[in-house]
């Protein structure tokens, strides 16, 4: 399994994602700069957190025009697995790869806390390593993580089981407590919490490992992963 970690000017979780895939999971991973135009040969693309292009205009609004995004859209259209975390989630919604949008937290505060989440759907490529309704704790660190979608879109997300993670105690005002959603096809996930910051005990927990383990199994064509 070979993963690409995209890196935009202002990304700051790219090295953490490389660490999670290479050093913790023992799989291949490469950093791919935003001006690259080729993602061939990769099984998985990770879009990291940070403040791409300074979050000018809106979070992710400039990143969506980066050269690598054309390749990313083609990769996703072909069914490739894509995960966007935090700013990566914001970029994927801006680029139209995921429904909805991320708005300022209701409190207007940047929140940096461990946050309990409920696994709302463990039948996705991103969540098979978790039990149904399992509660996990992942760090969040964002000012604009308040998920918004119009009522029709929200209803469709719920009906299709696209909500993968929900906040147990909604910290930011997200509609339906949504912390992570997939596209309709189920090969693109965006989530505000940081699984890559919870992959070893030294970091305070390992609840994020399941996201990477699920993806690694999905890319290798496995159908089931043992619950951890």
């Amino acid at each position, binding site marked *: 399994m070979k993963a690409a970690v995209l890196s935009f000017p202002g990304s700051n979780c790219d090295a953490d994602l490389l660490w999670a895939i290479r050093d913790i999971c023992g799989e291949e991973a490469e950093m791919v700069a935003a001006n690259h135009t080729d993602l061939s040969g990769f099984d998985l693309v990770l879009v990291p957190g940070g403040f791409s292009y300074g979050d000018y*205009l*809106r979070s992710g*609004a400039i990143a969506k*025009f980066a050269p690598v995004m054309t390749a990313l859209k083609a990769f996703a259209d072909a069914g490739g697995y894509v995960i966007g975390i935090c700013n990566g989630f914001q970029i994927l*919604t*801006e680029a139209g790869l995921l*429904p*909805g*949008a991320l*708005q*300022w*937290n*209701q*409190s*207007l505060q940047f929140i940096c806390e461990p946050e309990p989440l409920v696994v709302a759907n463990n039948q996705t490529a991103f969540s098979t390593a978790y039990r149904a309704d399992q509660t996990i704790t992942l760090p969040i660190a964002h000012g604009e993580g*308040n998920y*918004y*979608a*119009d009522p029709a879109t929200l209803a469709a997300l719920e009906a299709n089981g696209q909500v993968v993670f929900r906040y147990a105690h909604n910290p930011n*005002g997200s509609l339906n407590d949504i912390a992570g959603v997939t596209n309709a096809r189920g090969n693109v996930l965006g989530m505000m919490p940081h699984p890559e910051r919870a992959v070893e005990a030294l970091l305070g927990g390992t609840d994020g490992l399941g996201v990477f383990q699920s993806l690694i199994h999905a890319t290798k064509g496995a159908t089931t992963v043992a619950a951890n």
Partner: protein
Amino acid sequence: MFKATIYVNYKPSVLDPKAEVIKKTLGRLGQTNVASVLVGKYFELTLSADSKEAAEQQVDRICDEMLANVNMESYRYDVAAVTA
């Protein structure tokens, strides 16, 4: 040359926490008759185009593609001829 003045703001269905804070604070200052606050972004673009209609079409595209996130924001603009 044409000058486009563009306003982008949240749709009415989106609760804007910044606008709510401003409204609450105005109330604290005694401006209790302020019924609503709308916060938005303002852009000025100067562009060359063959006609006002062509400039408007281009500005519309620019708003859709970049200046507004139409999932949560709406926009309006005025385009007027200016001397270069």
